[in-house]
């Protein structure tokens, strides 16, 4: 896999050295050499003519000429639908066209007067070049041109139909906050900022995607995160040259460490509380405009098997559920393969009565166990996939068909054996216990080669596959951090949050993996030693 990473960088260098390979820019003639740096014309008619030419056949771009304070020619340009028309009327057109302003500031008030005294708008920016105004208009702002001025004003009154903050359907919890990010990146940053009250929470913004100009916000907490990681992620983001970024998946694939691995190395989440918790562990988050899914890295294997609820429920419950997940994670990966291996090679593993039952069930089946397992697993995946895409009303129909066809009819017709159906069902349930969808998918994919190996070599094949998987996982890195940390490399204090979830009063330090700078999370004040009278067996904490 290390080989793969180096090849990737080679490919990048090669493409950037060849100028021709760059994607064609489609930014219009105002961004060409001739006009790029040209200031705004004093004559408003030329500006209007050029802009109208630029926005030819764009029915949603509105040109609205008027007389500024009843005297000078003025023009506002904006994209209809992305601007709050009520605010536009009340706070821009009304003060600029009524006589009140004229009596106070004179009829020929300059643009800077307008900016300073007349417009009740929070976000105003003077713009110098015509090419920039095109960008601004497309970034959902209103451009105000005034005749005789060499600059124009960008007025931010953008508003468009938005989904409100709702509970994310992909990460439902029983206990915990129900807020989820929305497609608007500002809402997302607001949800995080509302939770962390420190100026050290940095939200660095950048645009990625030549045509989509998607806003990507890099969030981290300075002082908790390793600065090298921030540098690394910025370098990787800057390297991206792509025409569009429509979802965080684009970015994920463009910046992950090992693109050939089935295992996700960057976590995605819709939940602001998850992002906040991970930021506080010294990780960074990427919020991407247009999608509610944020990316978080560096992560490790155990994080992929953890749910936010682990930290909200009491620690005993969380620990038990965590072990349940670990067990069923292994079952999801190995159970069908084990069944195949045992029934075709190692029948002596089975207790006598189980042997009889399995032998009886397999008496009439036409296919060998491997083929049967592969058919059933494929069918199960197909039913799952069909169910995901269907509307709820049809989804239940699919589950009925699936249950009847596979569970009942196939067994009765003697095409598959009943134990195989049980195995597939358990495996299916097991893969759904893993909270992260993309991690569960990775396990599901790996199941098939393991089944084939088990059919060819028995337990030996399973062992071979296991060794390969373990080797691969151990070689994985997430932004330079070992994927299996803190088991390998072993860090005993951090095991508190892997094999079991220690109570909060015991987790006094942040994970060593991601935050080396500022480890202490809390003092000993709330530990049972101090909290419970008579609990003085331990020595007083050193801190």
């Amino acid at each position: 896999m290390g080989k793969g990473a180096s090849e990737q960088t080679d490919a990048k260098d090669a493409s950037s050295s060849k100028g021709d390979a760059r994607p064609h820019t489609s930014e219009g003639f105002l961004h060409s050499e001739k006009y790029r740096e040209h200031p705004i014309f004093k004559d408003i008619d030329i500006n209007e003519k050029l802009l109208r030419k630029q926005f030819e056949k764009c029915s949603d771009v509105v040109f609205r000429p008027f007389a500024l304070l009843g005297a000078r020619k003025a023009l506002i340009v904006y994209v209809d639908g992305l601007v709050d028309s009520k605010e536009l009327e009340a706070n821009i057109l009304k003060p600029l066209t009524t006589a009140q302003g004229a009596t106070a500031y004179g009829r020929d008030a300059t643009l800077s007067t307008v900016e300073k005294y007349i417009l009740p708008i929070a976000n105003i920016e003077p713009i110098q070049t015509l090419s920039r105004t095109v960008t601004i208009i497309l970034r959902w702002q209103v451009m105000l041109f005034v005749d005789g001025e060499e600059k124009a004003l960008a007025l931010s009154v953008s508003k468009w139909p938005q989904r409100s903050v709702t509970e994310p359907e992909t990460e439902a919890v029983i206990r915990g906050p129900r807020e989820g990010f929305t497609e608007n990146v500002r809402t997302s940053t607001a949800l995080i900022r509302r939770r962390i009250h420190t100026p050290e929470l940095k939200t660095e913004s950048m645009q990625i995607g030549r045509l989509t100009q998607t806003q990507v916000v890099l969030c981290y907490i300075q002082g908790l995160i390793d600065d090298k990681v921030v540098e690394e992620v910025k370098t990787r983001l800057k390297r991206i040259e792509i025409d569009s970024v429509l979802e965080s998946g684009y970015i994920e694939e463009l910046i992950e460490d090992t693109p050939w691995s089935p295992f996700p190395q960057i976590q995605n989440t819709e939940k602001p509380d998850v992002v906040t918790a991970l930021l506080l562990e010294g990780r960074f988050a990427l919020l991407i405009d247009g999608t509610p899914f944020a990316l978080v890295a560096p992560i490790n294997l155990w994080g992929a098997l953890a749910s936010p609820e682990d930290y909200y429920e009491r620690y005993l419950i969380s620990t038990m559920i965590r072990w349940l997940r670990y067990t069923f994670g292994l079952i999801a990966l190995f159970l069908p393969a084990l069944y195949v291996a045992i029934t075709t090679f190692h029948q002596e593993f089975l207790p006598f009565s189980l042997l009889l039952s399995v032998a009886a069930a397999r008496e009439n089946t036409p296919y060998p166990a491997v083929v049967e397992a592969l058919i059933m697993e494929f069918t199960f995946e197909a039913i799952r996939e069909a169910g995901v895409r269907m509307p709820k009303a049809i989804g239940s129909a699919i589950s009925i068909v699936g249950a009847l066809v596979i569970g009942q009819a196939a067994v009765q017709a003697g095409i598959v054996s009943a134990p195989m159906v049980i195995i597939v069902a358990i495996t299916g349930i097991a893969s759904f216990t893993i909270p992260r969808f993309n991690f569960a998918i990775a396990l599901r994919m790996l199941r098939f080669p393991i089944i084939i190996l088990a059919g060819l070599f028995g337990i030996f094949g399973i062992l071979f596959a296991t060794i390969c998987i373990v080797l691969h996982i151990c070689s994985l890195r997430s932004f330079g951090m070992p994927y299996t940390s803190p088991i390998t490399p072993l860090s005993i204090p951090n095991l508190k949050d892997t094999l079991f979830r220690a109570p909060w009063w015991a987790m006094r330090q942040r994970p060593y993996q991601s935050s080396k700078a500022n480890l202490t999370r809390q003092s000993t004040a709330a530990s049972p030693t101090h909290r419970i009278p008579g609990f003085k067996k331990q020595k007083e904490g050193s801190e």
Partner: protein
Amino acid sequence: MTWRSFQTGFVGMVILSFFCTGCWDATEINELGIVVASGADLVKPSDPHSNIKAYVQVALPSQLAGGATGGPSPSGSQKTFVLEEGEGPTAASALTSIQQRMSRRFFLRDRRVIIVGEAYAKRGLSDLLDEMIRNPDARLRSYILVAHGVTPNKLLKLAYPLTRLPADAIVELEQSHQAITINVVQFVKVLTGKSDPYAMGIRMLNTSSGKQGRIFELNDVAVFKKDKMVGWLRGEASRGFFWLQPQSMQLRRNSMAVPVPGGGWVTSQLVILNHVILPSWGKAGPRFSVNVEISDDILENMSRLKLDQSHDVKIAEHAIEQSILNQIVALLTTLKQTYHADIVGFGDLLFARYPKQWRTIESHWDQVYSRMPIQINVKVHIVRSGLIGDSVLNKSTSQGR
């Protein structure tokens, strides 16, 4: 070779190896003939040089498990197993001759019972044992039983009314703590030591109501001299063997009725059994002391003894002691005088304790054994006699007065 070309070569070899396999070791579970019990006997019991007949009881899983198609089959109406037989000069060849006729491969790992005919046992079990030890498929924890008064095939053919497979019934009987079990490993271990092995006998009986078919009974102990059977321990002697077996620690359910002086019976049940067999070497050669210490419950008191009084308890204890002593004496007399076989394991104990002196008597151990003095001490403690004390009968009469 560079690392990279090594890598490519390695991956290539791994991938190519997938196409070379034909899954030659693979056997689908439904292609197995699951052997649950087997038997061996001489073709002509009177002729010790005759061929060996092997019997194999193969389970029919479809009849046993019920499955989705049929539901549980009514017991008795359908056969749950098939009995096949084959002949050959040795046990292994007889088994092979069956395999050649069978469409399914033998699966010997769940063979839990081996029944040998009496005539075959008397000729010697060495070829059977050798085959079992050598065959990697065979399971060494199969119980060895000697058919008593019947041929093994009659026992193996019998449909036991209580369990689905007759082999299950035999295993359950073996594990019920009523029998002294011995499996292949233990048998071979004893055989390669300084002592002689034994095996439980199995007999066929009619059920008391007659019509419900026949059942097995495990009783009597077959005594072996090396690998050859020499005879049976019956009655008192076979019960005496219980007290000297390490396994009989588990013989919890064993109760015995003992006549007590003054008339009536006391039935006691074993709670704890400790026995120590101590060798010593005097001038006259080896001698043994057998110490048996038993804790008993009283199950039933049909005598005039008042068991809440220590004097009467002593009388009862003494009666039980006497009865056990008689059984052990009967055992040792039979073994020493009649069979000259050391199934209790004195030889092993002596060799472990006095390895040097053992060499001096090894050649004529048989004679030493039959003349060797053995001192037997039996101590019985009644630990729980129940709160009633004396018999209910006594109570009622005393109240009547």
